[in-house]
């Protein structure tokens, strides 16, 4: 059934319509929250709080955005409550991730070639490395990155959900991606080094 029809029915008190509406999102919000918080219990709480909040406010949904975007926005607010008073660090400016930038001379630096990280780390170890790198990202970057690439939403949809302009959202996503790359690169370089020294 069309999402708009389901919304109308749910707003009129049809519980089954609401269940159909949230059905396809609850698994995705759980996976997103788990990646975002790195904690299964927190992810469970976020899913439940999000859906209950959506019930409380279903009559306020006017259909200006897709139902999913509205639900993600609620989930983000719930997730932010769970992050609590996590220290809000800032990422370095974009140009500093690039050799030849302000702090790195391109003459002095050859970027480390990742090749295939699966060849140096078992899949569970690799998952742990990714989760830790994600957890190190400041929240506002982490959520923009995950909405864009984990949920595969467009930049415009992400901008709508996080309440920023498209340009600011693009920049946030790029900085998140560069910071993650940077962090993973350091880890992979060490792991390749260990593997090589183990061979000799």
């Amino acid at each position, binding site marked *: 059934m069309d999402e708009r029809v389901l919304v109308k029915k749910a707003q009129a008190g049809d519980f089954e319509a609401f269940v159909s509406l949230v059905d396809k999102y*609850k698994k995705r919000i759980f*996976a997103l929250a788990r990646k975002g918080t790195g904690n299964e219990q927190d992810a469970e709480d976020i899913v439940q709080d999000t859906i209950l909040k959506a019930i*409380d406010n279903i009559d306020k949904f006017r259909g200006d955005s897709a139902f999913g975007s509205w639900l993600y926005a609620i989930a983000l607010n719930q997730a932010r409550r769970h992050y609590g008073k996590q220290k809000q660090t800032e990422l370095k400016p974009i140009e500093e991730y*690039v050799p030849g930038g302000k702090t790195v001379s*391109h003459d002095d*630096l050859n970027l480390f070639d*990742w090749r295939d990280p699966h060849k140096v780390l078992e*899949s569970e170890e690799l*998952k742990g490395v990714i989760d830790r790198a994600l957890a190190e990202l400041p929240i506002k970057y982490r959520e923009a990155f995950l909405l864009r690439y*984990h949920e595969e939403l467009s930049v415009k949809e992400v901008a709508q959900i996080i309440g920023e302009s498209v340009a600011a959202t693009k920049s946030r996503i790029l900085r998140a991606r560069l910071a993650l790359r940077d962090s993973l690169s350091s880890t992979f370089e060490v792991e390749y080094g260990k593997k090589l020294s183990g061979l000799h």
Partner: protein
Amino acid sequence: MGKNCQDYIEGLNDYIDGELDAELCSEIEKHLGKCRNCRIMVDSLKQTVTLCREGKCEELPESLQNKLTSAMKERWKKKFPDKA
């Protein structure tokens, strides 16, 4: 990376995601042809997203599913008492 790498970094995400216009796209590709560091940058930025997507389809734990269903019913009764 040569002296122009800085000029391309802002467009790299759009380039990798296939959202860059053709003209800038071919400019970046020309640069990539002669810049090893930028090729590594592009490859590792692509892998960053691929790795984060791995193992994405997680099932909802059964305990949560059960808890959620009863919590939703309860809340719905409060929201729409005349529909209960």
